[in-house]
Structure formats: structure tokens, C-alpha cells
């Protein structure tokens, strides 16, 4: 078990290296002198030279690369060019908001999606199935930021049931602020989960062991849930786990719509200010989250499926 985890972690190392290298190349290839960008057009030659020295910009490019990698390993992303705050602190402040939004959206999406998917599979080719299919199609097509904007106009602006922007302070107000953004993301999520559940469950319900269950006298609910859904949970869990990242991607736009703090909001506003250390930090955080989630999904597999647990 431990060896398995260690193996998967080691597998991720080249990927992380690759992404960091890409970020490095992209930022160094970018037109524009970072020193000039940081200090502005009116900086003197001496100031620029000093800045380059401080930032290591005068070193040969391969040395810069290793300095960059070492900084990344130490989570030293530097300071924001505009606010002078440490980027790692900014990430620390913003990350919890993004995580709470993503997880809440996942929760809502799963709670709505799995029952819908089961309903569609059990009532296959009847009207509930068709209704769920339409629901999924719309969920796949509607842009989350559009849905968010509409919900914002209706429930925050016109009805005033929820706050218009921000993320709140104490627990109650945080949940209150979280409600609408989470529901927005959850709608798209539930469409995906419903479709995934339907497909997985239908496939499993056609398996021989479900017939065996019926042959030994299990009634339909038992055959469907005990024998069917339990086995369908593996592909469903994997799919949901991987789709966590889709929800995370969606959170970027949603944070903007609802004017919430978060990594996405931090990244996007940094882009507008050309605040490269912050951009770099934001991208690195996303990359790190993606790899961790993939790792966790792999490990979840091991826990659910006795075949994998036994080492194949």
C-alpha cells in the first residue's frame, strides 16, 4: 500500500517538472523586460541593473532555470510587483475560498446528480430518463458564468435573498455568501454526475452477477443498489474525482461573477496588472492541485476496489 502511494507520487514528479519548465519558458520568452515591467518606464539604468541583480536576471539562462526550480520547491514565488505582498501569503489567503467553493459545489452536484442518474437508469427509455437527458444536455451547454450572472441578477439583485459579492466572515455569513456560487457550479456538475451515474449503472446492471443476485431471490432494489450501484461506484467515483478539476476550473469564472476572493480571482486580476510573480504562483498552485487530485483519485480506487487493493 505504502509502496503504491510512493510509486504514484514519484510518477507525478516528471509532470510537475514539465509544467514548471513550461511556466519558466513561457515567462522568460514573453516580450518585455521584467525589470522594466516591475519598476516602470521611468526607472533609471542603475535601478534596473540593481533589480536584475536582485532577481537573478543577469545570470545565464540555465542558472536562472535552476534558481527558479529551487524557488518553486521552497514555495518561494517572490513578492507581488504591485502590492509587495509575499505571493505565498496571497495564495494562503485566497486558497480556502476557492476550496470551499469547489467542495460545496461538488457536494451539491453529487447530491443532485446521483439520484437523477439512478432514476434515469432504472426508468430507462421512459420519460424520467428523457427528462434527465435533456437536463444533462442543457447542463453541458450552459456556460457556468452565464448561469451565475442570471442567478446573481435574480436572487441577489432583484430578490435580495443573498449577498451580491464577497465571501463573508463568520461561518453563517460565509455559507450565505457561498450558496449562490456553489449552486451555479453544482448545476453543471449535477448534469455531468447524472449522465455518468446513468451510464455506469446501466453497464453494471447488465452484468452477470446482477443476474446471479436476481437468481438467488434478491428483489429489484437490492439487485440495483446492493449489487449494481456498489459496483458502479468505482467508475462513478473516478469520474467524479477527476471532474473535481473541471469544477475547480469553473470556480475561476464564478469567483469573477460573484466578486469572490479566491485563487482564480487572484490570478485573473494579476494578469490585468501583469503581476508575473503572482501569475506564476497561481499557475503553480493550480498545477499542484491538479496533480494532487489525480493522485488522490488513484488512491481512492485502491480503497474501493478489493482487486486493486490486493495488488492486481
Amino acid at each position: 500500500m505504502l509502496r503504491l502511494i510512493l510509486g504514484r507520487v514519484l510518477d507525478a514528479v516528471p509532470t510537475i517538472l514539465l509544467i514548471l519548465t513550461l511556466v519558466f519558458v513561457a515567462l522568460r520568452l514573453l516580450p518585455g523586460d521584467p525589470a522594466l515591467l516591475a519598476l516602470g518606464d521611468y526607472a533609471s539604468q542603475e535601478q534596473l541593473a540593481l533589480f536584475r541583480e536582485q532577481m537573478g536576471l543577469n545570470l545565464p539562462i540555465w542558472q536562472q532555470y535552476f534558481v527558479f526550480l529551487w524557488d518553486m520547491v521552497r514555495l518561494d514565488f517572490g513578492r507581488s510587483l504591485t502590492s509587495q505582498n509575499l505571493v505565498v501569503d496571497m495564495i494562503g489567503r485566497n486558497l480556502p475560498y476557492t476550496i470551499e467553493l469547489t467542495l460545496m459545489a461538488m457536494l451539491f452536484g453529487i447530491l443532485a446528480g446521483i439520484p437523477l442518474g439512478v432514476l434515469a437508469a432504472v426508468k430507462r427509455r421512459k420519460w424520467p430518463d428523457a427528462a434527465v437527458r435533456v437536463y444533462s444536455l442543457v447542463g453541458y451547454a450552459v456556460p457556468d458564468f452565464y448561469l451565475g450572472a442570471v442567478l446573481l441578477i435574480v436572487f441577489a439583485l432583484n430578490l435580495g435573498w443573498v449577498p451580491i459579492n464577497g465571501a463573508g466572515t463568520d461561518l453563517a455569513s460565509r455559507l450565505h455568501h457561498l450558496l449562490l456560487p456553489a449552486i451555479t457550479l453544482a448545476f453543471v456538475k449535477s448534469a455531468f454526475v447524472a449522465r455518468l451515474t446513468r451510464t455506469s449503472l446501466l453497464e453494471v446492471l447488465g452484468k452477470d452477477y446482477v443476474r446471479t443476485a436476481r437468481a438467488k431471490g434478491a428483489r429489484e432494489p437490492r439487485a440495483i443498489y446492493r449489487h449494481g450501484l456498489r459496483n458502479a461506484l468505482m467508475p462513478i467515483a473516478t469520474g467524479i474525482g477527476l471532474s473535481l478539476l473541471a469544477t475547480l476550473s469553473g470556480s475561476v469564472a464564478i469567483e469573477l461573477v460573484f466578486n469572490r476572493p479566491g485563487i482564480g480571482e487572484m490570478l485573473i486580476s494579476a494578469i490585468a496588472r501583469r503581476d508575473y510573480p503572482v501569475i506564476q504562483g497561481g499557475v503553480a498552485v493550480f498545477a499542484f492541485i491538479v496533480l494532487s487530485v489525480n493522485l488522490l483519485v488513484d488512491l481512492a480506487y485502491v480503497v474501493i476496489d478489493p482487486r486493486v487493493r490486493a495488488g492486481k
Partner: protein
Amino acid sequence: MSLAVPTVPVVRSPNFLQTLFTGNLAVTAAGVVIMIMVLVAIFAPFLAPMDPLTQSVFKINQYPSMEHWLGTDQFGRDVLSRLIFGSRNSLIVGLVSPVIAAVIGTILGVVAGYYGGIVDRLLTRLNDAMLSFPELLLAIMIASVLGGGFWNVVGVIAVAFIPGFARVARASTLSVVQEPYVEAAVAVGLSSPRIIIRHVLPNIAAPIMVLLTLWVASAIRLEASLSFLGLGTQPPAASWGNIIRDALSNIFGSPWPIIGAGLLITVVVLSFNVMGDALRDALDPETQS
């Protein structure tokens, strides 16, 4: 000059068309929507009642009227005209980037699958690394460092899609290469490029086509998302995504641009999805749900 226009058979059999178009109202409707939107994009200058960029301080945030069917935005620009012109950016990016991705991805996938060895392992490794990122997040990450603008958006979306195409192309190539008739072709000494063009490409065309249709929908969504985030089509040029972005900063002014642009994105993406699903079912009956 000959008057006869050479016709290219696009469709393999009448059966295929039948499955695609008859007996399914939704598919027909989707086709009509796509056709209309393409025509609107092509003839935008003739259809739009106003210039989409002309501002007017006297006409800020007007509600729908006979003059401005969908009202005006915070700069006094006609919303309907902006939506019509916006369809150009949205559709062009939506169509061009998956095609670019398909070409590059197919080449990479076929090369990896056909030649195998170290090339295959390297490409697959790179591919897996990229595939572990959701397309939107990958696009946001790339666009963050590259910035917006038309060709950047096309490039970013294409890059985000390449791994998917490469994977399908590689898998299909691997299965084709193992077919006896390809082994026979190798045995009689046919050159590799010939085998790839004659045997491999025709066989992987179908899955690539299906993916392409489905990803036009994704690309339109991605363009909209990136433009909404300010990483896509740059103002003052209109795209459905940045219309919503503009309107959101003017949310107390007028909700009409948001509603209009969002509906357009939803309907067009829905149509391409329905088309893609139908195409997949028609080409590969086994995956029918």
C-alpha cells in the same frame, strides 16, 4: 474551363445519413440552428442593424425598443448588433481551433502509434501530463502567461485540445497497425508514409471526426469562458464571452446583453453537442446509450 464541378463523396453510405438525420427531430433542429448561426456570422455586416462599435453617450443602457431590439450597453452600443458580430469571433475560434488541434494531434498520435519506441513513450508521457489537466484550466494557465488576442486564443484552445486528439489517434493507429492487412502491406514492402495514408488515416478518420464535432462545442464554450475572463477576444471587438464580461460590470445598467449572449452560447453549444452525439452514434453503433 469545365463547367462540371467535381463532387466529393463526403458521406459513406445512405445508411449513415439516414441514421443521422431521419427519425430524430432534435438532430434536425440542431442542424438548422448551426446553419442559421453560420449564415448570421457570414452575413453579419448586412444583418446587423447598427455598427457594433459605435458609441453614443446619449443612448446609454437603454431598454429594448423599436430602434434597439435588445437595448444598448453602457457605451450606448447596440446590443443586437454586438451579438451578431460577436458570433463571428465565437464561431471562428470555435471552428478553427479544434481543426488545428485535430491536425496536429492526429499527426502526433499517428507518429507515436505507428513508430512506437522512445518517440511514443515521450509523446505519451507529455500527453498524459497535459490530459491530467481539464481543458479550461489548461487554457486559463496558458493564456495567463501568454495573454489574450485572437490568435493567442486559437492557439491556447488548440493546445488544450491536442492531447485528446493525439490519444484517440494513437489508440486507433495501434489497433489498425495490428490488422492483418496492414501487416500484409508491411510484408510486401509498402513504404511507411504510404501505409499511413492508405490504411491508417482512413481508419482513424471516423473517431477523429466525432471528436472534432463534439469539441467544436467545447471550443465555443472555452472561447466564451476565456473572453469572459478577459483572456480571449479583446475589446472593443465583440465576442459572446466578453459581451457578458462587459455587461457584468454594468449589472445595474442593463441585463439584456447577458441574457442574449448567454442564450446564444447555450443554444449553439447544445446544437453542436447534439450533432456530435448523433454523429458518434451513427458512426459507432456500439457506443449508443
